[in-house]
């Protein structure tokens, strides 16, 4: 009974959510549909409907710039997410030890997140600038052989991006994991103390597994950030030296704007979408199965 009146078709509700309908269907379905469609065409500056099959994808995967970008995103993603998680978790655990000035530390760890990635990129560009930053400062202090200029070396520039990423993002990881830690029932800690379990062991064997939700949240947040990383690269390295720090997000924008090759750009964008789809489908499946199991139990 109740279901029927709530499920009824309410005109005001539909009217009120017209923007949502437009965005959900118009942008996230039709828009993405067009992107995928254009990836099969020979579109240059403007979209055409001259279908060329998978030719754009073949050209994409033969483009060394794209291959470097894909490699970079994997490397950057794995490095920055794992460092972020470890560093953020350590910070959270240490912050949970009844620290004096907790609010001050929290503010310090978190403030970079409030700033634009452009700002972050520029800040670290200067810190790592060989003529201005750390290297110059150390040499000035008399250590003339000191050499630390990761940004000018194609092999190390990406590490600089990782450091900047950690600087910007690990505070958030810390905040999310700290909230997770504080959410754990205090009596669990007491029980572990009575059981004589060392603190580190309690953290690893009991409390960390209880924080699955917080870890997942932090992880997803970072994955989304990594796939979208654009501003940081633009501000810090511009994709250089050369193409050493190019990323798919940068690559697509360049193809659309500078190189005016929409077809191939859309092929690259579609490739970016693919892993997101796979992960979403997988997590959807997991959620669905868990719900079914819970229903079966009830």
């Amino acid at each position, binding site marked *: 009974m109740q279901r029927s009146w709530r499920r009824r078709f309410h005109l005001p509700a539909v009217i009120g959510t017209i923007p949502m309908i437009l965005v959900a269907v118009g942008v996230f379905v039709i828009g993405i549909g067009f992107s995928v469609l254009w990836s099969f065409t020979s579109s240059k500056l403007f979209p055409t409907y001259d279908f060329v099959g998978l030719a754009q994808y073949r050209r994409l995967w033969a483009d060394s710039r794209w291959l470097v970008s894909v490699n970079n995103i994997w490397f950057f993603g794995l490095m920055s997410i794992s460092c972020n998680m470890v560093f953020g978790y350590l910070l959270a655990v240490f912050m949970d030890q009844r620290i004096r000035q907790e609010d001050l530390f929290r503010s310090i760890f978190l403030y970079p997140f409030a700033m634009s990635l452009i700002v972050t990129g520029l800040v670290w560009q200067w810190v790592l600038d060989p003529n201005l930053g750390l290297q110059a400062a150390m040499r000035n202090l008399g250590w003339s052989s000191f050499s630390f200029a990761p940004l000018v070396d194609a092999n190390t520039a990406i590490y600089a991006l990782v450091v900047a990423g950690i600087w910007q993002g690990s505070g958030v990881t810390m905040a999310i994991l700290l909230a997770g830690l504080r959410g754990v029932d205090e*009596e*669990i800690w007491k029980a572990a*103390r*009575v*059981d004589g379990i060392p603190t580190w062991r309690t953290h690893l064997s*009991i409390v960390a597994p209880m924080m699955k939700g917080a870890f997942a949240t932090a992880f997803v947040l970072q994955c989304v950030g990594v796939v979208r990383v654009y501003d940081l690269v633009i501000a810090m390295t511009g994709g250089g030296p050369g193409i050493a720090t190019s990323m798919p997000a940068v690559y697509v924008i360049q193809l659309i704007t500078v190189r005016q090759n929409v077809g191939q750009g859309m092929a690259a964008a579609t490739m970016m979408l693919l892993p997101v789809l796979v992960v979403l489908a997988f997590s959807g499946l997991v959620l669905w199965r868990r719900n079914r199991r819970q229903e079966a*139990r009830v």
Partner: protein
Amino acid sequence: MDMAQNGTSVSIQDLSLNFGAVSVLKTLNLDVAQGEFVVLLGPSGCGKSTLLNCVAGLLDISEGRIFIKGKNVTWEEPKDRGIGMVFQSYALYPQMTVEKNLSFGLRVAGLPRDEIVKRIARAAEILQIEPLLQRKPSALSGGQRQRVAIGRALVRDVDVFLFDEPLSNLDAKLRSELRVEIKLLHRKLQNTMIYVTHDQIEAMTLADRIAVMKGGVIQQLDAPQTIYNRPVNRFVAGFLGSPAMNFVEGRLEKHGDGWSFVAEDLKIPLGTYQFDGQPEAGPAVFGIRPEHVSLNSGTGWPFSTSANVEVVEPMGSDTLVWLKLAQQKFSVRVTSERTPQNDEAVTLGFDPMRASLFDAETGGRI
């Protein structure tokens, strides 16, 4: 019982605890005999859980000493105090099976494998949780979880069990079932048990002795019946008993060589009342439990008077009759068969021997 010869199991001496300027426990002393079941009873915020946490070593105390089995454990870690503890939220490790929950502490302590197996088997048998050993806590009912939590204390093979409101998260029916089980467990194990609760029924049914607490102070420490029948102050009298004790405010007066309690036109001669000390005339509170008052049962009572019934509350096994005595609310508990009607004129009688008199100002027993 042979608990008396075995001496003291837990001894708390001059224990104080302050959080900053707030004094939570005030110079407490409590000796618990070997094998004794002591219940700490009181309203929330009275310090009873805090006291238990101090005994467990989960809170650092500000002053005083704690002995367990004759050993000064004031500075010991919880695991070295020879205690097991059961928590209100069960505090089971959620991602471990029941068996792992029971064995985790033992494995960390480095006990030999066969000893661990033996202890778990024994605990599982006593608590009848053998079929649950491979399940995770999320797949257990509340009662089963609490049994596992008790099991975790049991496998530690300790002499002192601490219970921190262990039944508060369960519904009424399960609560009464587990209450009986805990009592049976105590009879079987003969351990010392300290049990915190705000539920007076749990306290009355389980305890050898009850410590009624308020404001960080133990108000009265006695056997349940003594506490029930001879409460040392008005707080204890009002906290225990359901329905609650009747209180009538009035004055204590001396008439000739006998004392009486007077409130408006009511005058209760206290010839049979046992005073704690030398009474003095002045404002006082007269307390008597509803079941110690008799309705329409003749005039053989040392005191009887008449009143009109205002409300009748049938409660199944018996009935609560509300009326007014000296313009103050007064209840009488009668068996169902003798239930009067609303507005009926009744006579009520009681023996002041069963009453309690309190100083109106201090609340202390007179």
